[in-house]
Structure formats: structure tokens, C-alpha cells
């Protein structure tokens, strides 16, 4: 995990002091999150590195052909159905919580986030819903339902666990803590102004005694990351991703303070954590108004950037902008990946990210110094050049125009929130690459700009081939691309899992869940279960390695039978 084992031990010791509060037997000591990913899956990416690389290798290039279904369960959101998951053998009554009056989205759940696996129990979420399931058979142990005030119920990226307690965010902007064993609520705290139309989808990340919480907004409100006390729910610090006051860094990249304060940069997706530097590194969302940059001329820091903040203070250590002055809603919120690598013969502590805009970046994660910029979205056509800093110069002619601008990628991007993976065995960074074209028309030429994602209309006009792409982090060049066959340009679905067994798991364009050879991209095994809706994960129970993946409301668990 790192080339400085001594430092890591020191950090782990420092963190373990958190446990002094003494709640007896603890399910997840926060210090254990520092361990490389293996038997369990205790945080969003499995571990802090974002690699989604599991040390498990029972399922490997040789054995994967024998992978078969262990169980499948379908989850029902809301209190209906006696609380039981369909096919899961029923279950206890749902535990009701929440400050609102409404049940949103009752019916088939839509699982679009990480599933934690701790102590043989799975913790699954969809907006306003959390389930605990037996990892052996998917049987429901408890189900918690949050009554909502409203908000955008687009997805939930998962729960976090600290000692015996779970944490999740709601679309109406609460951080809710549950007892992991019973599903009973401990407390909830408001994390954003619901009137200002914030809505919260991210999975919180626990680092020591910090619960790191992002949130989202589509209405020109400033983005921020907050840290809460896992015991009390008290706010520890709040970091804004855009300048909020005169003199704030980055203000010179906006025309005025009002534009900056309405400049977006939401923290949609969890980041990664480097214990050596105690930096939490995450990607920020697009500037707003999204498509009309006329009233926010400049680079618009710190939107569409990799940002590193000190986990104890919330102070920014460095940033690197992955999309300067974005005008296409291509947020850079993708979970980055920590890589302990070698550049020009020297060991380096790096962080890499593949951005929605089709560019791949490697940066020094201690200093923020630029190392690599490359274009991995082969059809991406919005750039004019590369600055000496490694930042891509956008071509203003590719902004939305009245007669139409032919742009690749489309609004959804070359990649999106479904996470990439990295294997230290191959040295390759794996990401879905979707290449499509749309014509972007400006429909609101008002010199004040539009608002939110308004002011444009888009029309998809065709595709270039889409791939599963393996990128060399040192050069940014593709080591291989596996093209998804077909003529409609569909790309792969879901996130990616890499394992020490030399296998990648992800969805293809045809509704197959596929195991690929991590060295070559050759398909080794598949099962047509439908388009996958989260990132595959793996865990070990009773000495058996499981591979777990969601397709909407259905969870599929595979193993060697």
C-alpha cells in the first residue's frame, strides 16, 4: 500500500486512540480501514486508496470459468411488503425514521452505490433506505426507511461504518447515524440548506474520528465538504470548493464574488485518503451555470479539480484543475486512485483520475505537482491545447452556440461516477471509455448566463466505438482497449473491480456481467444479468470468495460452487 511502512504504523497507532471512548466490541475500528482490501469491504472503495483492488485470489484467471450464482435477492424500498425483500424470505418490519411526511420511491429499490461487508453482514442503500443483509444468503436482517421532506432522489452511493455505527446521507440533506446491529437510529443532523435546493447522494467516508460528508446542488449554489464528529454529529469543519469571501484563494479566476458564490463545484462522489500526509483527496463538480460560461469568465477555481484537504483542519493543501472553465456539465467528481508508482526511475506517491471530459491525469499526491495529462476519450474534441501546467485549454468554440456545436463526449461524459480501478500487479488503471457525439445548442443567449443546467438543448447524433480501457498511469497511454461490439455505441455499465486473481469484473454494453483478463482485456466469464447499476465488489465468508453486484433492485452474489 505504501513504501513507508513505518509511517503507516505510526498513523494507525494515532488513529486507534480514537477507540478510547470504549463502546466494547467494535465491528469496525477506524484504524482497520487503513489495511489493504481483502476479506471485508468496510468503506466506499473497499479501502482508502480508491484502487478497488482486492487481495483475494480464490477466483482467478483459471478458476473464474467456474463462477456461478450463490444467491440473488431483490430489495423493496419503503415500508411496504412487510419489510421483506422479495425473494429474500421476507424480513422484519421496516424501522421508520425521518423528519418529513413522505415515502419516496416505494417499490423496487435502485442500488447505485457501494455495499459494505463487515463481519459477514452487508449494508446496502438506496435513497432514504438502508438494509442489513446476511452476506451468506442475502437474507434481510433489518431495513431502515427515512420519511423525506422531498429533494432529488437520484441515487445514494452507500453508507459508512465507524465502530458499531452506520452513517448515510438523505436527499433532504440529513446525515443519519444508525446502530449497525439493530438498524435503530442514533441521531440525525442537517448538513445543508434544503431551501437552497441542496440534495445529498454521496457515501460518507470515515477517517479516524471524522465523518467526511459531501453534498450536491443543481441551482448555482456553492459546493462544500464537511467533517462531522461520529459520536455526536457535531460539525468539525466545512471546506467550500469556491471562493466565498473577499481575499479567498481562487477569486481571481471569477469575474466577481457573486459569480464565485454561485459557482457550484459540488462534492458529489467520495474521495480517497493518504494516511502519510493526512490528506483527503477528492474531485469537484462542474461550475455553474453549467452550459453558459458568459457570466463566469475565468478558470473558475476550484471547480472541476482534484482537491486535497487536510483531514483534521479542512484546509486545502493543493489542487489541480482537470477541467478549466468547464461549459459542458462534465464534473470531475470521479473517485481518484492513489498509486505508489515509479516515474523516471524514482518512487513517487501519486494520484490518478480519469475525468468525465475524456482526459486522464496523474499528479503528485503530496505536492499536487503535475505528472501526466493524456486524452483517453479518443473522440473528445473540446480542447484547444495543453498549458505548460498540464491543464487542458478548452476551445471556446466548442461551447454551446445558437447554430450548434458538435461535441464529444456527450453530457454524460466519457466516464462518470461509476468508479475506475487500478491493479498494482499490472500497473494499469481501468476505466470505461464511452465515445459519443451530440450537438449542443445555446437556447438562452442572455448575457447574464442561464442558471443550473439550463440554457441549452442537446441532440445525440451518433457514436464512436466504446471500450474498456487500460491506461498506463506513468504515460497516460492505453496499454489495451477492449472494444464493445455493436453499432449503437453503448459502453460498458457500472464500475470496475480488480483483483489479485488477475481478473477485472464489470458490465459490458449488452447486459452481461463480465470477468476480463486484467493483462489483456480478454473476456474470461460472463452472465447476462442486466445492466449493472453499481460497482462490483468481492469479499470472503467461510473461506469462500464472493463477487457481489447490483442490477437495479437485484443483488447477485457469485462464487465458485
Amino acid at each position: 500500500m505504501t513504501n513507508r511502512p513505518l509511517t503507516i504504523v505510526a498513523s494507525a497507532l494515532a488513529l486507534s486512540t480514537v477507540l478510547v471512548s470504549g463502546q466494547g466490541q467494535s465491528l469496525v475500528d477506524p484504524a482497520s480501514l487503513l489495511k489493504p482490501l481483502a476479506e471485508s469491504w468496510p468503506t466506499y472503495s473497499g479501502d482508502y486508496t480508491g484502487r478497488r483492488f482486492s487481495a483475494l485470489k480464490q477466483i482467478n484467471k483459471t478458476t473464474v470459468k467456474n463462477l456461478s450464482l450463490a444467491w440473488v435477492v431483490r430489495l423493496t424500498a419503503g415500508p411496504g411488503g412487510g419489510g421483506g425483500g422479495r425473494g429474500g424470505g421476507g424480513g422484519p418490519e421496516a424501522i421508520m425514521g425521518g423528519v418529513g411526511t413522505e415515502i419516496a420511491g416505494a417499490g423496487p429499490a435502485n442500488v447505485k452505490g457501494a455495499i459494505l461487508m463487515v463481519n459477514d453482514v452487508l449494508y446496502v442503500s438506496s435513497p432514504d433506505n438502508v438494509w442489513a443483509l446476511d452476506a451468506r444468503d442475502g437474507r434481510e436482517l433489518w431495513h431502515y426507511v427515512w420519511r423525506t421532506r422531498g429533494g432529488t432522489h437520484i441515487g445514494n452511493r452507500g453508507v459508512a461504518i465507524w465502530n458499531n455505527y452506520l452513517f448515510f446521507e438523505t436527499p433532504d440533506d440529513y446525515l443519519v447515524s444508525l446502530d449497525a446491529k439493530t438498524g435503530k437510529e442514533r441521531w440525525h443532523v442537517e448538513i445543508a440548506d434544503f431551501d437552497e435546493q441542496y440534495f445529498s447522494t454521496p457515501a460518507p467516508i470515515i477517517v479516524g474520528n471524522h465523518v467526511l460528508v459531501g453534498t450536491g446542488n443543481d441551482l448555482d449554489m456553492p459546493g462544500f465538504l464537511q467533517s462531522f464528529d461520529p459520536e455526536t454529529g457535531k460539525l468539525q469543519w466545512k471546506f467550500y470548493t469556491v471562493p466565498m469571501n473577499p481575499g479567498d484563494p481562487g477569486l481571481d479566476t471569477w469575474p466577481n464574488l457573486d459569480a464565485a458564490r454561485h459557482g457550484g463545484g459540488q462534492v458529489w462522489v467520495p474521495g480517497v485518503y493518504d494516511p502519510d500526509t493526512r490528506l483527503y483527496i477528492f474531485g469537484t463538480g462542474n461550475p455553474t451555470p453549467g452550459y453558459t460560461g458568459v457570466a463566469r469568465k475565468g478558470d473558475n477555481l476550484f471547480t472541476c479539480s482534484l482537491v486535497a484537504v487536510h483531514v483534521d483542519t479542512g484546509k486545502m493543501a493543493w489542487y489541480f484543475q482537470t477541467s478549466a472553465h468547464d461549459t459542458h456539465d462534465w464534473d470531475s467528481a470521479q473517485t481518484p486512485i492513489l498509486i505508489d508508482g515509479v516515474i523516471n526511475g524514482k518512487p513517487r506517491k501519486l494520484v490518478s483520475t480519469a475525468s468525465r471530459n475524456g482526459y486522464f491525469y496523474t499528479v503528485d499526491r503530496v505536492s499536487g505537482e503535475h505528472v501526466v495529462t493524456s486524452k483517453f476519450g479518443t473522440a473528445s474534441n473540446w480542447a484547444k491545447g495543453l498549458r505548460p501546467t498540464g491543464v487542458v485549454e478548452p476551445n471556446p468554440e466548442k461551447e454551446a452556440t445558437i447554430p450548434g456545436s458538435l461535441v464529444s463526449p456527450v453530457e454524460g461524459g466519457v466516464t462518470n461516477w461509476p468508479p475506475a480501478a487500478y491493479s498494482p500487479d499490472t500497473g494499469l488503471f481501468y476505466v470505461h471509455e464511452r465515445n459519443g457525439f451530440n450537438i449542443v445548442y445555446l437556447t438562452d443567449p442572455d448575457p447574464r448566463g442561464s442558471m443550473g443546467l439550463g440554457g441549452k438543448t442537446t441532440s445525440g447524433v451518433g457514436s464512436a466505438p466504446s471500450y474498456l480501457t487500460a491506461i498506463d498511469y506513468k504515460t497516460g497511454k492505453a496499454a489495451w482497449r477492449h472494444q464493445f461490439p455493436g453499432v449503437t455505441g453503448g459502453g460498458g455499465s457500472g464500475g470496475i473491480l480488480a483483483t489479485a486473481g488477475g481478473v477485472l469484473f464489470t458490465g459490458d454494453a449488452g447486459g452481461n456481467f463480465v470477468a476480463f483478463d486484467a493483462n489483456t482485456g480478454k473476456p474470461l466469464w460472463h452472465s447476462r444479468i442486466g445492466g449493472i447499476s453499481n460497482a462490483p465488489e468481492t469479499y470472503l465468508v467461510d473461506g469462500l470468495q464472493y463477487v457481489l453486484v447490483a442490477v437495479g433492485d437485484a443483488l447477485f452474489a457469485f462464487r465458485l460452487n
Partner: protein
Amino acid sequence: MRPLLVSLLGLMLALAVRVTAQGPPPPPPGGQAPPVQGGRGAGGGQGGRGFPAQQRPLADPAVIARGKTLYEISCRACHGGDLRGGDLGGPNLLRSPIALNDNDGESIGPIVRTGRGDMPPSNLPEESVKAIAAYIRSILASARGQGSPPAGPRVELNVLVGDAAAGRAYFATHCSSCHSPTGDLSGLAQRVPDPMALQNLWVSGGGGGGRGGRGGGAGAAAAAGPNRREVTVTVTLASGEKVEGRLGRIDDFIVTLTQSDGTARSFRRDGDLPRIDIRDPLEAHKKLLLVYTDTDMHNVTAFLATLK
């Protein structure tokens, strides 16, 4: 009143959830799996109905009308006729935390009365201030999804900016091996009179949306004939037998097709076997997407708009 409002909210929430469910559903029979879209629903049309500004009950129409009149007199010059900020530099009220938090003038009122920064104080009576706040809330309530402002008056936007003569020359070089202005494209601009729809149609080849937007536009089928864009496939079996038909779906593991007599067939794929040859009539269009400049595109659209 209250129960009705609540159940309406519930319905709206349910609708919003339906529309925004962005996860990929199981692939449609015979089709490619839809792409995974949107970090938080890019292009998802989220409705945005679920926030307080859209949940609050509207004031009496007469109060709103009075508030509008007062707004026009006292507020418009600075905050704009559409509340998005005016010539005198007042902020956009549609994204103002004060306006968004207002229930009945309690947030907006004190600022109207005492002023703020460059904004002068007002001695309007309480009821007038509340009416102005009611008017502002009524506009906030009409905001559209994903932060889009309320629909304004229709603005005529000129898509036809290209040079038709240059477009004719480009067409002759790049398009005329497959298309003819006097043949298949004769009268095209009559069938597709809207220039934006025309541009979307010809650039996509009528192949429809792909990802990220509306399709190639109405009239696509009419423009090109019934089977013109059908993708066909030939599967050559180990025996040498060739099976031909309309392509259903292909991935790394299977190819499905429908033969001319309507028989559905599928074949397991194993690497390069059996041999698959796909004929995609839109292949040339897709390759050109990598080639066109926006100027080329606008010029060709201007030329095609002359085909009446």
C-alpha cells in the same frame, strides 16, 4: 387543503423518482443495454419538484398580481423583469438564499424595509411587502428542473448561419457518393422545415439519439425510406454456411438476427468465431463525426435547407 397538498407532493415525488431513475435497467429484448448515465442524472430531467420553493402553497392570485405590479415599480430596475438580475446590478433572486428561504415575507420583508448594500430602504406597508414576496415565490415555484430558470418568452434563434454555396461544395465532396439533392434528398427541407431538426437529422443520418439527447428528429424515416438504415449481419458458420439477416444485438458472447422470412436466430460467439460481418449504413456518418468542423456542419445545413 392540506391532505390534498400532501398527496400531490407524494405523487410528484413518485414521478420525480420515476423520471430520474438513472440506473441502467435490464437491457431491452434484442437491443443494446442502455448506457449508464449521469453522476447525478446528467440529462435526467429531474423535475426539481421536490424542493421547498416548489412545494409551498401559492398565495391568492390577486395578491400575486398586486405583488407583481409593486415589483415592476420598485424592484425590476435592479433585479430584472425575470428576477434574474437587472441592469442596475441587483442580484438574481431566483438563486438567492434569502428568497429561497422565504415562506411569507419573513426573509424578504426585512430587506425590503431596511435595504441592504446599495439597495435603499422602502416604506411600503406590510401587506405590500408580503405581496411582493408572494410574487417572488410564485416565480420561484415555476423554476424548471436541474436549476433551470422558468421558461421565458420564446426567443427566435437563427440556426441557419452557414454558407449554402460552401455547403453545396462540401456535400459534393463528402456526401454525394450516397446521397443526391435531386434524388433521396429531394424536398428534404419541406419534409423537415425546422433547421435544428434538419441539422440533427442529417448529422446523425437519421440514426437517432445514441447517447445524450433527443434523436435525429421527426421525419427521419420519411426522409430515408423504410429499410435504408437497417443494420444487417452475415454469420459465416464453420461449415461455410452463411446466415444473413437484420442485426438484433451483438456482444462478445452472442449475435442475434432476424432473417428475411422473420425467423429469429442467435449464435454463440467464441472470440473471432463464427465470422461476423456487419453492414451499418450509418458507418460513413459516424466516421464523419470525427471530421466535420462546426463551420462545415453549418454550411451543409444551410445548403440542405435550400432543398425545398
